[in-house]
């Protein structure tokens, strides 16, 4: 076969172009640290990487859900804890009031104490989450959960408290299809089988009337109220525990997914650097050879 100068030069140029192209690609991988720089680098892996990256982001959002759900869980739990303290104090007051040696002044002071406890309980039942929503109003979070009618006037019946919110708990999704209640139904907590406000009111009235039997009944009701509040508090505690366990799981899942994305789209650094070195060496060799091949003709020897 005849070999002409233009063939040699074209072949040399083509070789050099190919090598420079390969080198440019490796350089890009080294610079971006990515194996997948565009969809055509590996269409199938690129698709998987897209889906996985969305899953990473979604898992991140679930973790955020858990973080944010804590504010409502804490507010709810604290409110119930406060209410439990109120009821405990009220029971101690009831025991004190049942003492037959109490004079009228002592009874009046105990009555005022119950009035204050009643106010505290109302405050707790109308607790608001940091965002401003009433936690015991269900979805009607802009409405105060409990509304008091009337005031404490000695000789009159105690004020009543009515539930004005929505009788439901707010649920939040913390993983695909996994919901937790981040609040409790105000109705269930404060006016479930026992009406905590009514029990306190009853205690106030019994003290006001100095009716020892009624004080005993009120104390029994408060015991039931105490149990009811504790049960609700346990429920919230359960939701918190669930959130904690999912947080651990989701963190693991997030990391696992991120690793999978990295396996798909990240370049292997060692591979890239050794490729880079090898390709540079090859390019230099080609340059030397091409330069030498281009020079000699028969003329050099005549």
């Amino acid at each position, binding site marked *: 076969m005849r*070999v002409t100068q233009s063939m040699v030069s074209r072949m040399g140029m083509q070789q050099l172009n190919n090598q420079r192209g390969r080198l440019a690609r490796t350089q890009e991988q080294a610079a971006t640290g990515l194996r997948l720089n565009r969809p055509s680098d590996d269409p199938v892996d690129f698709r998987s990487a897209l889906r996985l990256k969305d899953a990473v982001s979604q898992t991140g959002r679930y973790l955020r859900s858990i973080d944010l759900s804590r504010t409502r869980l804490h507010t709810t739990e604290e409110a119930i804890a406060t209410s439990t303290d109120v009821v405990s104090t009220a029971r101690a007051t009831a025991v004190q009031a049942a003492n037959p040696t109490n004079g009228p002044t002592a009874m009046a002071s105990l009555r005022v104490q119950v009035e204050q406890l009643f106010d505290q309980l109302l405050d707790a039942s109308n607790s608001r989450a940091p965002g401003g929503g009433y936690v015991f109003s*269900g*979805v009607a979070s802009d409405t105060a959960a409990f509304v008091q009618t009337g005031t404490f006037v000695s000789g009159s019946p105690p004020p009543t408290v009515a539930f004005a919110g929505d009788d439901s708990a707010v649920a939040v999704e913390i993983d695909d299809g996994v919901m937790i209640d981040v609040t409790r139904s105000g109705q269930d907590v404060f006016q479930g089988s026992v009406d905590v406000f009514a029990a306190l009111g009853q205690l106030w009235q019994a003290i006001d009337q100095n009716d020892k039997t009624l004080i005993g009944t009120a104390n029994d009701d408060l015991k039931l109220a105490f149990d009811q509040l504790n049960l609700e508090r346990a429920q919230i505690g359960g939701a918190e525990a669930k959130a904690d366990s999912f947080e651990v799981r989701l963190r693991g899942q997030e990391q696992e997914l991120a690793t999978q994305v990295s396996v798909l789209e990240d370049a292997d650094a060692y591979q890239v650097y050794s490729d880079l070195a090898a390709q540079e060496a090859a390019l230099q060799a080609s340059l030397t050879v091409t330069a030498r091949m281009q020079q000699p003709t028969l003329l050099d020897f005549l």
Partner: protein
Amino acid sequence: MAGLFDTLGTATRGLSVVQSGIATTGHNIANADTPGYTRQRSLIEASLPYQTGAGTIGTGVEQISVERVVDRFIAERLVRETSRQANLDTEASIYRQIEAVVNGQQGGGLSDELTTFFDALQDLSNATDPGQSAARAQLLSAAESLVDSIHRSDSQLRSLQRDADRGITSVLAEVNAISAEIAELNQKIAAAEVSSPANDLRDQRDQLVLALAEKVEISLVTDNQGMLSIRISGGLPLVDKNIAAELQAVVDPANPNAFDPTFSQVFYNGAGSFFDATSLLRGGELGGLIEARDGIVAGAIRELDAFAFTLAESVNQVHRGGLGLVDGNAHDLFSDLSGQPNVDNAARNFGLAADVDPSQGGTLLNIAAGAAPNPVTGGPAAAPGDTAWVEQLKDLRTGSLATYLAGDVPGAPTGTTSSLVNTLGKWIGDIGQGARSAERSLAQQESVLSSVNDRRDSISGVSIDEEVAELVKLQASFQANAKVLSTISEMLDDLFAAL
């Protein structure tokens, strides 16, 4: 018997043949780097001898002609492969550009925006303030970015398409100029070849044929006068001997482009006819641009349309089932596209629904986060803390839904059931696949073309070594002929001295 003068004539002819050989070699060396140059060769033979009683006496050498060294088969193959190369090159370049539009690897891609949109939806269900005003605003801005991103992809693809359309017009001008030149050269070659082969004119014509092959796929027919007729696919004569036909870009309302009536169609104007030949043109840059405009880019746009339609339709469908904070009416989140005759142009028409967009007179309160009428006020709007419906919307992220394919009629999706993220991933993956195979075919074709070029150079290219060797040989031959001449001259001197 031959006289001294006859031999003198033989030597003189020898010298002149050697000289013309040197001229040809010089021509070859001078054109060693000329693109498309075909090496030439002096054809010589022993001239007619004459008979004497003593035998046949030679009369020296005679030059018959100077011919080009070509292999018809390789030349035709070169034309074919050049067309294919230009075609694949155009397609690969279009794919590279489409890929840049859809590639979100450096951030800001359509897939990122879709992810952000669903993230914002999820945040809405976590907002603790009644009415979730910040989360609603965030969702709307994520939805707006998604709309912008789809519009941007659509308009970038459409501008690629418009570039291809302009490219077609300018390539046609080049095609017409080249075919006119070939027709003219045909005329010149036929006139010149009455006497001897018009080597350099043929080289010029071959170069033009290759340039034409780069523009469009052609087939060649040579007649006995040396005129070359060129046909484009479908057998249409582009150059018929010394007459060139024309290809024209025409925007004709009566004969519109199927995708966009403002695009031009390619009309064939020649041999007394004038008609739309767009579908007949294949190969080369022109075929590549037509395929890019009407096939590759149009396909990518229509798939984006189908995705945008699926997105709008599925989100709206769920959104309508939820309740906003204003009234009990069903509201859309994205503009309702179901009035379109089919899903085409959905990406362009995609937008936010007026109901939820404050800049269109709507309100964020119409975003349907709630699942039930407000239980406290008795409805019809949802309670301000009700975000239960967001879960339904969010399920669209990974949940399977009926997807539309390009050209589907609203309400009758024919695609496979898939999630939105996967549908978008498929679109991007398909483009990547196309780009990859275009790139591979191009690389393959480059090596094919280069081997054909090597073959051609091996036969028709100038080898300096060979020419220099030829030169040395001719020089020796010149010296020998000169020696004969001087010997005869001395003999004649001897004779004249004897007189």
